[in-house]
């Protein structure tokens, strides 16, 4: 009797639990949070890029005949105290706030990666000095230190980026250091060392790809944090300045009219909340995707 091996194999593969490992794309597609988050984020970026085409009005155009108009078909989100169309300003705000969030996260991410890797990999005095610096920076309330730095350097988003870079790297440094401490004693690193790889090559080719995932997840969540920070600084008069259609500026401008025109402050705030939710979805999804065992 001949046995049809191909059939047996396919049976084993499909029904008896010896599944082929799924491709990354397959796994990502099954991750509802991640796909939803990425889809919505793509939409948000598209809106930001196409803001000049989508916005029904010029975000800076004053219209004194139409001030403080409630939301209507003509002005979806109403108008502010200068008659500017809030919907158009919120659309343009996406350009500013997304850019602020993404730019803010890059420098602390890179600085933290470098210093954290050095501390974790070499240990000794490098570790001691870097981690004491982390302790000191961490002792400050994040917002207070950022405010103090922006205060002495002068208001504006540029100085916010600098302040964030100086303060926020500690999160990434701690994360990377912790993970490198665990990874550097594993066999694959020792094997790499045994075949004569340089420190630089071990870090770049072996350690970083293994430890970077947690930091990437943090960075996604941090984009939302920096959008919130930029808005808060605008509120305190230290961030973007009017008439910039930054969401925080818009909320602040509407503050004087909360008794008569709630929409000026409320709707830009909702834009921030929605963006934050989208980024949290991506962050949570990525955490599940990159570290399936942590589910």
């Amino acid at each position, binding site marked *: 009797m001949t046995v049809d091996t191909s059939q047996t194999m396919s049976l084993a593969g499909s029904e008896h639990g010896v599944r082929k490992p799924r491709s990354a794309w397959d796994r990502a597609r099954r991750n509802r949070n991640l796909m939803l988050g990425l889809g919505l984020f793509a939409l948000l970026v598209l809106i930001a890029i196409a803001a000049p085409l989508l916005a029904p009005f010029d975000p800076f155009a004053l219209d004194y005949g139409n001030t403080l108009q409630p939301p209507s078909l003509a002005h979806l989100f109403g108008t502010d105290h200068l008659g500017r169309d809030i919907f158009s300003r919120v659309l343009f705000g996406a350009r500013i706030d997304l850019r602020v969030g993404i730019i803010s996260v890059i420098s602390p991410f890179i600085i933290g990666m470098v210093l954290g890797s050095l501390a974790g990999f070499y240990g000794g005095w490098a570790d001691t000095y870097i981690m*004491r*610096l982390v*302790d*000191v*920076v961490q*002792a*400050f*309330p*994040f*917002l*207070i*230190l950022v*405010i*103090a*730095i922006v*205060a*002495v*350097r*002068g208001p504006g988003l540029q100085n916010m980026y600098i302040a964030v870079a100086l303060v926020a790297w500690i999160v990434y440094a701690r994360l990377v250091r912790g993970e490198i401490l665990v990874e550097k004693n594993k066999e694959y690193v020792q094997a790499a060392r045994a075949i004569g790889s340089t420190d630089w090559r071990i870090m770049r080719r072996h350690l970083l790809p293994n430890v970077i995932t947690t930091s990437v997840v943090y960075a996604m969540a941090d984009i*939302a944090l920096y959008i*919130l920070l930029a*808005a*808060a600084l605008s*509120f*305190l*008069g*230290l961030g973007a300045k009017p008439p910039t259609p930054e969401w*925080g500026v818009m*909320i*602040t401008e*509407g*503050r004087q009219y*909360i*008794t008569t025109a*709630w929409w000026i*402050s*409320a709707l830009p*705030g909702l834009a*921030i*909340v929605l*963006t*934050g*939710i989208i*980024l*949290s979805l991506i962050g949570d999804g990525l955490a599940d995707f990159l570290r399936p065992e942590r589910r």
Partner: protein
Amino acid sequence: MGRGQYILRRLVQMIPVLLGITVIVFFLIRAIPGDPAIAMLGERATEPALERMRHAMGLDKPLYVQYAYFMRDLAKLDLGKSTRYGVPVTEILFTRLRVSLFVVVYTTVLTTLLSLPLGILAALKKDSLFDNIVRSAMMVTLVMPSFWVGIMFIILFSVKLGIFPVSGYGTGFLGHLHHLFLPSLTISLTIAPILIRALRNSILEVMNQDYVKTARAKGLAEQSVMTVHVLRNALIPAVTLLGISIGGLMGGTVITEKVFALPGAGALLIDSITARDYAMLQAGTLVFACLVILVNLATDIIYSFLDPRVRF
């Protein structure tokens, strides 16, 4: 090593961090573009006054001498004179700090009252509708800008419903409680989600431990299992997180005090920026940082009492 020694060691460990903070604050004021003496005394200061200030700050001396002067003054709690108010900064700062501390304590209480029941129920009813609602709500509150929440609270509770005052500190303890409810709740909403999530996760984790299974297997009533075995252990990480959050909360008070026009130290810090009152800014930053360190220290010490496994 006993607990006393542990606390002593933690105190000693604080010294380099405190020194680091003084260095940062010291350089902060020197990072201001232009003449620090003008920054300290204001644009309208006379040349002799500026000269005196430069000498007092040791600006004509090397940096390490300037730092030594700074530390000497600090030891005497002399943090300079406010250019805005014309009195020593400590005088105003410590009065205003009372308001901020009231808000911090109030927020801590509110956060605990909010997080404990929600975290416990969400864990007990894991994956239920309630759990999902709590988790979704947390996701939303976590990304709400706190000053926006404050403004929305004022619109809803103060302007429309008239239940709470729009701003101010109130008089007497009950007056403070009434006036500071919305500000404290605003800050609470930014911390509570983190705490609820941590509590829920740690309860779920503890419920899977062998000793809980053993407790159940030996026929212990569910309520005893929960209170004696699960909650006692699950609360430990939550307490630590609450401590860390209170540190972060100090930053939150700055914004909330501005939204609700409270006469607190956080609002003072922001106003000192606009008024270019750098002595006040310096002192405020220093005091807030020291408070955070103290809270962190207190958290570690409380933790050592809560968890007998802590290795000293």
